[in-house]
């Protein structure tokens, strides 16, 4: 797409502490210039995605509702690359992790967890699981990345394997992506450690715990990380980004975004500089067929709906879905008829009605027993509910209430 006139880069595009701006208003930056540095362990640096002038550093509201500093850069249209950009020197595990850390790469599948932290684990890991399941409706950016950037993925796998020493590398892909499967099988043919696991196209196949279970048979228990069962899980696009960084030294400043939904004129995958306003991305895709009523970061099952078209594309925005009025229309919420659809559709065996009951009556032990903490908010319960009850919202509330409750219990 054409160079955006302006980019807005929030200092939080990851799970963790905000990065600290290191530029001032008026500074000139190039593509790949560090503009905010990592703060603490769980954090990630931010780099300029266009060349130009820093126009504004001000608090913006991000999707979580928090106010964080965001850096606005006015583009000079030149896309001049920072002269200091050079491929990283990687000759040890420490250097590999440092490179991933410096690259600003976070989980590109949507979660945005700083990737280098996963490789820092001191637990024995023997398996690298690459998440190419891409189970959300509409989204195809991972699958396209696997087809077009297979070489980058190969480089990332080989480098990671060299320094981490995996026994097995499993690439999990849903079977409705034959092109991606074929490309990844080429990698597997050249490396005996790599195996492509063709998975049924069932949402939420790409949920971390679901994927690990279906590819390795291991259950990640409540409170555990994949490393606790010997696994590191990385999204396929994340791996491609690591490969690209190892090759060029250009940090994460652009990404592939699926643009789709009933309100979009020309749905497609677009490579977008991070920080571009979503409105500009839609404009590039031919604009709207009708006024969009809802715009979602990510897919329709777990994505976050945004308030307006000025919000930027973030590092972990894998899709932009714009719904028209018809698609937004939700059926009315009616009484629970105890049909059990939510209970029987939950991939984790959680009992949403019991969570609702416990939350309403203040019985937090009931909420815990019903499995609220295990909920990954995939939305299968709510999707299947004939009474259209706001189950995910309720589960989120229950988890928050539970956090308060546990704090109180710990202090008591």
């Amino acid at each position, binding site marked *: 797409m054409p160079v955006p006139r302006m980019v807005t880069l929030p200092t939080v595009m990851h799970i963790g502490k905000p990065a600290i701006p290191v530029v001032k208003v008026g500074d000139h930056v190039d593509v790949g210039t560090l503009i905010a540095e990592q703060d603490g362990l769980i954090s990630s640096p931010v780099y300029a995605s266009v060349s130009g002038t820093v126009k504004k550093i001000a608090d913006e509201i991000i999707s979580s509702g928090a106010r964080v500093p965001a850096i606005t850069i006015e583009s000079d249209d030149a896309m001049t690359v920072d002269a200091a950009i050079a491929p990283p020197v990687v000759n040890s595990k420490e250097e590999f992790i440092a490179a991933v850390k410096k690259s600003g790469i976070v989980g590109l599948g949507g979660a945005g967890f700083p990737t280098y932290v996963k490789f820092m684990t001191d637990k024995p890991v023997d398996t690298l699981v690459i998440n190419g399941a891409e189970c959300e*409706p509409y989204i195809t950016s991972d699958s396209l990345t696997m087809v077009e950037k297979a070489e980058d993925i190969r480089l990332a796998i080989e480098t990671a394997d060299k320094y981490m020493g995996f026994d097995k590398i499993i690439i999990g892909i849903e079977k409705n992506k034959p092109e991606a499967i074929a490309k990844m099988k080429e990698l597997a043919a050249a490396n005996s450690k790599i195996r492509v696991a063709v998975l049924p196209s069932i949402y939420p196949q790409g949920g971390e*715990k679901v994927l690990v*279970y279906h590819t390795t048979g291991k*259950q*990640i*228990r*409540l409170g555990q990380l994949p490393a606790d069962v010997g696994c590191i899980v990385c999204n396929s696009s994340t791996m491609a980004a690591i490969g690209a960084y190892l090759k060029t030294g250009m940090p994460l400043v652009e990404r592939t975004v699926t643009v789709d939904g009933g309100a979009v004129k020309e749905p497609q995958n677009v490579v977008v500089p991070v920080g571009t306003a979503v*409105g500009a991305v839609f404009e590039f895709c031919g604009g709207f067929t009708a006024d*969009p*009523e*809802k*715009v*979602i970061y990510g897919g*329709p*099952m777990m*994505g*976050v*709906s*945004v*308030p*307006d*078209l000025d919000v930027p594309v973030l590092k972990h925005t894998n899709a932009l*879905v714009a*719904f028209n009025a018809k698609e*937004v229309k*939700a*059926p009315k919420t*009616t*009484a*629970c*008829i*105890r*049909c*059990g659809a939510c*209970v*029987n559709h*939950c*991939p*984790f*065996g*959680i*009992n949403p*009605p*019991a969570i609702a009951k416990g939350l309403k009556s203040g019985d937090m032990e009931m909420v815990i*027993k*019903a*499995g609220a903490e*295990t909920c990954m*908010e995939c*939305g299968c319960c*709510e*999707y*299947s*509910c*004939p*009474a*259209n009850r706001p189950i*995910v*919202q309720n589960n*989120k509330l229950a988890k928050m209430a539970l956090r308060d409750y546990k704090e109180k219990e710990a202090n008591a």
Partner: protein
Amino acid sequence: MDKMLHVSVSPHIHGKKSTTGIMLDVILALLPASVAGVLLFGLSALWVIATCVVTAVACEALFNLIVKKEQTVGDLSAIVTGLLLALNLPANIPLWQAAVGTLFAIIVVKCIFGGLGHNVVNPAITARVFMLIAFGSMTAAVFPAGVDATAGATPLSVLAKGETVQLMDLFLGKCGGALGETSALALLIGGIYLLARRVISWHIPVSFIGSAFLLSLLVEKGDATAALAWILSGGLFIGAIFMATDYVTSPTTAKGKLIFGIGAGVITVLVRFFGTYPEGVSFAILLMNIVNPYIDSLCTRKVFGGSKK
């Protein structure tokens, strides 16, 4: 950008299933049995059905109006209750009795407890039991036109005397009983429709009818024909397919459903062979409705990655 977009918690799409759609499926599934009832028992059956359905909808609408609740008749559940109850009544029942029974089902069993989803027991079953006790007309045997009624008894009482009945007659519904319960064929067609539409699962009907069959076989000392006659008689099919599978009053998990079905099958057979009433299906379902919350809490699914709590 001036225009504000819709913002809501995910998921942003929903499945096509709706409560109203489910109720419509149940109504459609009950149509074969309703038609069979009218064909077998004549127009009087149609009047009973009409009375019950109209009374059910009117009662719920009026109740909501009086207590100023949001109108819920649009969800079609009142029609389901009215229709189900009608199919459980003899074709010659005085219409005022049918109306009183329906009023009991809708007002006392359903609305007072908070309406759809909040009733503790199945409204139609409970009303049937209430009417069994209140009205003598409920126990009188009614026969389809052209059926030899010389024995003057329903198949269940014939069977209880140790006599035999024609299995094919039972299967088609050419025997005495409530207007919608006699034709196992029509009920099976409805049941298969509900299974195909995934409105119900196989667990309750199969475990209910299956356990009743096996126990009957045991009591009849291995006489399969007699055991088949037992399960094809009375209200077992309509009860197992349409009433025991009521979402609100049955367990949500597969395991719970199996326990519920087996429990109901056992109670049915116990009442039939050892109780004072000839038929035990209603009592069986009612009793299992009452213990349903306990079954449900004992049969929760195992949470992923956790130990069974």
